[in-house]
């Protein structure tokens, strides 16, 4: 039963990602991507990571994709001026598809050659309690460092995206 679920969810994820990647309208792409993330979250639950699944939805689909939507709307691209008006044509897609195909073949071959990859994934379940324990005991330092990193990112984003300084205005500073 679980394996059937896995394959269905996998198909959904792939199709949704493919749609997201090929849309002309970025908002449509974001919606499709959220769909894909939902499927992935369910796959994570199947693999025994319920906490990770929750976070996938909360952080990835809930925060990051929403941020994308905010920025898309903020950029105020007029409909006529939208980048990718035509979208890349088949002339652009074909070489990249070819490259992707070759890479896929290489990866498949590598998987075939590796004897250890045929193992079946066991059923298991990582309880939040165990997860929390591991996170705040074994990886406590990493948690602190990541929190610093989020601070830097916030400061950086604030600085990069600040309003245009008065120097750029024609009036000039008095």
């Amino acid at each position, binding site marked *: 039963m679980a394996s059937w679920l896995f394959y269905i969810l996998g198909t959904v994820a*792939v199709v949704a990602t493919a749609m997201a990647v090929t849309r002309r309208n970025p908002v449509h792409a974001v919606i499709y991507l959220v769909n894909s993330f939902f499927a992935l979250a369910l796959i994570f639950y199947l693999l025994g990571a319920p906490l990770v699944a929750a976070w996938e939805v909360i952080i990835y689909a809930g925060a990051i994709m929403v941020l994308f939507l905010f920025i898309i709307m903020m950029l105020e691209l007029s409909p006529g001026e939208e980048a990718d008006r035509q979208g890349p044509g088949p002339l652009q897609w074909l070489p990249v598809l070819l490259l992707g195909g070759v890479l896929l073949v290489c990866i498949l071959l590598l998987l075939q050659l590796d004897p250890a990859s045929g193992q079946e994934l066991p059923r298991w379940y990582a309880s939040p309690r165990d997860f929390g324990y591991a996170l705040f005991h074994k990886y406590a330092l990493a948690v602190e460092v990541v929190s610093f990193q989020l601070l830097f990112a916030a400061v950086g984003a604030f600085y990069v995206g600040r309003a245009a300084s008065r120097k750029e205005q024609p009036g000039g500073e008095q």
Partner: protein
Amino acid sequence: MIVPFQHLLILASLLFLLGLMAVLVRRNLIMILIGVEVMLNAAGLVLVGASALWQQLDGQVIVIFLMALTSAEVSISLAMVVYLNRRKKTIDIRAFDELRG
């Protein structure tokens, strides 16, 4: 027993390659960043699968860090997209070719 690990890896590589193609082909900066997101997700999938295979929590912990860092990275890169749009009035990637030799 769910699925062979191989199948998980195939799924992850498919997602990764789709993200890679998005990065290579799309001209809109936002779409390129979306491709990056897809690739990061695929990596996370592999990590979770590996932690399931070996029944250890480390993979999942790494995934949480990955998500944290991804969110930080996305915020900065979208701030940069805003800035670039202010500079060139467009987010077509072909407009940013000052490094041309």
